[in-house]
């Protein structure tokens, strides 16, 4: 479990990076971005996990003492909430741009778009 969850996070990030760099389709690139970001989130969440801890909501309003070992780390979760929301905002903007590109060049494919760009009378 120690290396597994970090490794999975790294695999996901690498996969996302691969898609962003090598895929020709703009939508696939955005999917790669989404996968990259989930990889990062998994990385952060797994660093804040604790063996045998419960969710970070205090039982019975903290009555009977609060022990930090009993609750998962809230800090990493906040950071990742931020990252998720930022991710969806970026995704929306990217999709809007992809939509505009499709409207002008009639394709999501990077090569077609570049070929179209070079044509002088486009």
């Amino acid at each position: 479990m120690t290396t597994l969850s970090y490794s999975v996070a790294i695999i996901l990030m690498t996969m996302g990076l691969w898609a962003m760099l090598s895929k020709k389709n703009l939508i696939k690139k955005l999917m790669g971005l989404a996968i990259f970001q989930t990889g990062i989130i998994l990385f952060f969440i797994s660093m804040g996990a604790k063996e045998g801890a419960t969710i970070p909501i205090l039982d019975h309003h903290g009555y009977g003492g609060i022990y930090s070992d009993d609750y998962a780390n809230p800090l990493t979760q906040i950071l990742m909430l931020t990252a998720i929301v930022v991710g969806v905002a970026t995704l929306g903007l990217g999709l809007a741009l992809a939509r505009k590109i499709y409207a002008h060049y009639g394709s999501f494919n990077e090569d077609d778009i570049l070929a179209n760009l070079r044509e002088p009378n486009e």
Partner: protein
Amino acid sequence: MSSQWAFLAMGIPFFTALIMGSVGYAAPRFMRWIGATGITLAVFASIGLWSTVSTDEYVSYFFGGWLPPIGIALEVDRISALMVLMVHGVAALAYIFSLKALPNELPASKHPVYYTLYFLLISGFVALAVTGDVFNVYVLFEVCALSGYALLAMGGKKAYVPTFNYVLMGSLGACFYLIGVGYLFIKTGTLNMAHLADVLPTVFFSRSILTAFILITVGLFVKMALFPFHGWMPNVYTKAPVSTLCLMAPLGTKICVYVLLRVVGYVFSMEYMTNILAVQPIMMTLATLAIVVGTLYVVYHRHLTRIIMFIIVSEIGYMVGGIFLGQMDSVIGAVYHIAADALMTVTLVMVAGVVRHCLGGDAIADVAMMFRRLPTTAIAFVIVCLSVIGVPPMPGFFSKFLLIKGAFMSGYYGFAVALLIASLTAVFLFFRFFEGYFYMKTDNTAPSVIQEPWAYRIPLVVAAIGLVGFGLSFSYWYGFIKLALPLGLA
């Protein structure tokens, strides 16, 4: 409480943007007055912050009243106060310029939204310069980047493809930075910059810190368009509207350089960078290459906007080189150059915008026409060119002098040579523009002088005067910056 200035400098543009967003559709007539009030107040706030820092040296501001490792703090030293002053000064100039430039570029129905994003972008830049929390930097990167994407995409049909690439590259840079922060966080358990600087020396010799260093620097390099990662920048900036460019080109990359200084100089410490990692040769090679490549492209291109973009690429090389040289003088030179270069770039971009709008193009021939027809612009252009070349009373001279001095002191002669070559190229470039005035056959025989609108002339004149003033007051700034430098500089 004088430390309130630290918040007001970022809060005033933020609230201005929100008020604009709320009333923009109901009362579009008031937009420019709200904006003018906001930017004036913001400039006052930054001056207040500057004077506070001149006496107190250091201002901390704790959001929510929680002390740093628990809450988020703004930490303003003298350098960041200078950066705030720079951002607000440039933003004020750009705002005045955009009042006239924007109606030429965008339909009026988009103006309220445009200015909302514009002010959010300004507040994001300011906050990046003053925040003291490494994760907050990521969020602010995204605030700046997203509003930047939207503003840059306004350049019309040609701008969409470069902007899409910029979305990918910008997100990639921010993600790299975030992973790096993750590695730092997992070894130290804190996100506050000052606290990190305290905790890090105990874990200096671990691989994860090395990984964190690599990822953070690479992420910042992508964001600031240093040489191997510069591909996205010239394309997206040349296609953007000029009023966006006035804000993005001077500040977007410079602020990232400052963040790099903060992260490398204050969090990792210069000692880690030079003695433990010994990455200095790699970084200096990158910086030198950036200068050389930028210079080559400058010679190659024939349009003013594009030339400015590659000047930026090489100037980024100056600053990164100055930071990684690790000498006291070179770091002062780099910081001074960040501010000077922001002023120079905004002037150059405004000149390009005026030429584009008044003369209909920005090729070399059009620029040469400028000397005949737009005298005010031409004078500003000459002044800024002198500064780019590095003629003595101008700020470009002092920063270059300090950088070359630092390069010689630490033995990176290649960097010094690259700087000199860049200066020579600037001379060449300037004369290429200027020769057009003498030798070019103009097709219409009696070129008439046109008057630029006031909204173009005021910022140009102010920027030119500011440039000269910034150069003349160099000794003051030298002492001012020197007191805030990171520890461990020779």
